[in-house]
């Protein structure tokens, strides 16, 4: 059990650093397009502005419209607390905590889709249907990646899985997990966060009928989810447990920045994939993680 101070510092770190990531992504996209783009701290300004606004709720919606985002946010922050931060370990560590993390991500998805269906709009249904359908494939890929980490290190605790060295399948795992990151966070090529066309929306469609503080909570939760996946990808590949504490922290921070810039570059260079081709890409991500699992299996058996 960690001390209360450590818990508060860890929480503050996650909550305050998370909105930086979408800002960095947008800045990279702007740079690639030859624009100046919004300031890196834009999401912070947006969140504080939204927090003070009033709420317009659809007449059809139950209190679940407001409760849904809140529950999703708590689930995401709890998942973030479970994730080890390099040498610091997770807030609470026990055998099987990685499965609690996956379940918390699923709970966040459930509540976001629920809040989308609350308003009784066509777009909400569309966004929710696409989100939960694609999540089936990305969940298979994520569990395969976690299984390969577990088989490689022989441990079922997040601390043990993520701090030991990366195995022979590190490149495959990185590629597969990066693909899952793009899918779960609704980035190009799965979803375009800047689109205005309903035909191309997933995440945007789910947030259409929210306003004010609930919308701020949804946006912040999305950035926390991006940070969770960026940290997961970095820790799955880098052997942070072997380095001394300061070097490991610096390596983690550099790697998260690298992943974020990578997301920005992918968003600038690729176009959104037609929805009927998304299963192909997610199946490829699943196969990448599967081959990483088989390499991890082979690596230990020899």
């Amino acid at each position, binding site marked *: 059990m960690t001390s209360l101070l450590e818990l508060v510092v860890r929480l503050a770190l996650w909550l305050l650093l998370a909105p930086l990531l979408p800002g960095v992504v947008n800045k990279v996209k702007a740079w690639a397009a030859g624009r100046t783009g919004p300031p890196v701290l834009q999401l912070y300004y947006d969140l504080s502005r939204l927090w003070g606004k009033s709420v317009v709720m659809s007449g059809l919606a139950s209190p679940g419209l407001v409760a849904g985002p809140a529950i999703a946010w708590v689930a995401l922050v709890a998942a973030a607390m479970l994730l080890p931060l390099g040498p610091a370990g997770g807030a609470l560590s026990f055998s099987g905590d990685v499965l609690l993390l996956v379940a918390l991500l699923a709970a966040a998805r459930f509540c976001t889709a629920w809040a989308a269906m609350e308003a009784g709009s066509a777009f909400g249904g569309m966004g929710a249907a696409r989100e939960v359908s694609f999540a089936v494939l990305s969940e298979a890929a994520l569990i395969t990646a976690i299984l390969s980490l577990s088989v490689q290190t022989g441990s079922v605790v997040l601390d043990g899985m993520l701090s030991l060295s990366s195995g022979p399948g590190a490149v495959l795992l990185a590629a597969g997990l990066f693909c899952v990151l793009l899918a779960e966070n609704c980035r190009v090529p799965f979803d375009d966060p800047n689109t205005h066309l309903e035909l191309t929306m997933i995440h945007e469609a789910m947030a259409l009928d929210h306003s004010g503080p609930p919308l701020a909570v949804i946006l912040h939760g999305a950035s926390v989810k991006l940070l969770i996946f960026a940290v997961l990808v970095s820790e799955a590949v880098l052997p942070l447990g072997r380095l001394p504490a300061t070097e490991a922290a610096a390596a983690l921070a550099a790697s998260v920045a690298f992943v974020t810039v990578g997301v920005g570059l992918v968003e600038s260079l690729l176009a959104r994939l037609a929805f009927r081709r998304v*299963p*192909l890409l997610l199946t*490829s991500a699943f*196969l990448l993680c599967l081959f990483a699992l*088989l390499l991890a299996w082979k690596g230990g058996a020899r």
Partner: protein
Amino acid sequence: MNETQNLLIGMAMGLNLLALGSSRLPSVVRAMAVQGVVLGLLPIVIEARFDWLVALVGVVTIAVKGVVIPSLLRRAMRAANIEREIEPFIGFVPSLLLGAVGTIAAVALAHELPLLPEHAGTLLVPGSLASIFTGFILLVGRVKAISQVCGYLILENGIYLFGLLLIHSTPLLVESGILLDLTVGVFVIGIIVDRIQRAFDSLDTRKLTALHE
């Protein structure tokens, strides 16, 4: 040496899956070309000492499989004016999954075969079996003639890989002969594709059954 070998063959197996998943024909041709280059490097890697003949054959293989044959295919594609495989027999996701299953089965099968100890730890046999299976999937499951030609060439890559097991016994002249055959074959295919396109206004090989009685 073993590690570099395994890395190259691993890349070739990955390119198999890339070829299975792409619907754009230029991507399939490029995957097949890169696979040829990678496999052309292999004899140079396998031979511990530097041999002029081996290096020459390697360079010629890379040139033919990586540059000549793909350019012939690209010319044929431009003449026939096709870019995509739209509706294959075996869909893209099923063929990708089938290819993955085939790769895993090839590794398992290679375990059971009685190989020499120097070959038992490498990915030579699994890689070759996987490439052969991928080639067959492309030959059977695709509809456009160019995809089927690429499948045939991947099949040839697999057989070539298997032949590397016998690298010390087979004269490299035989390998060169096979290479020449391939080049001429693809050259002829390029001409035929043009003719098929002119006769049927499409490269859909199902239309070729119109020639039977």
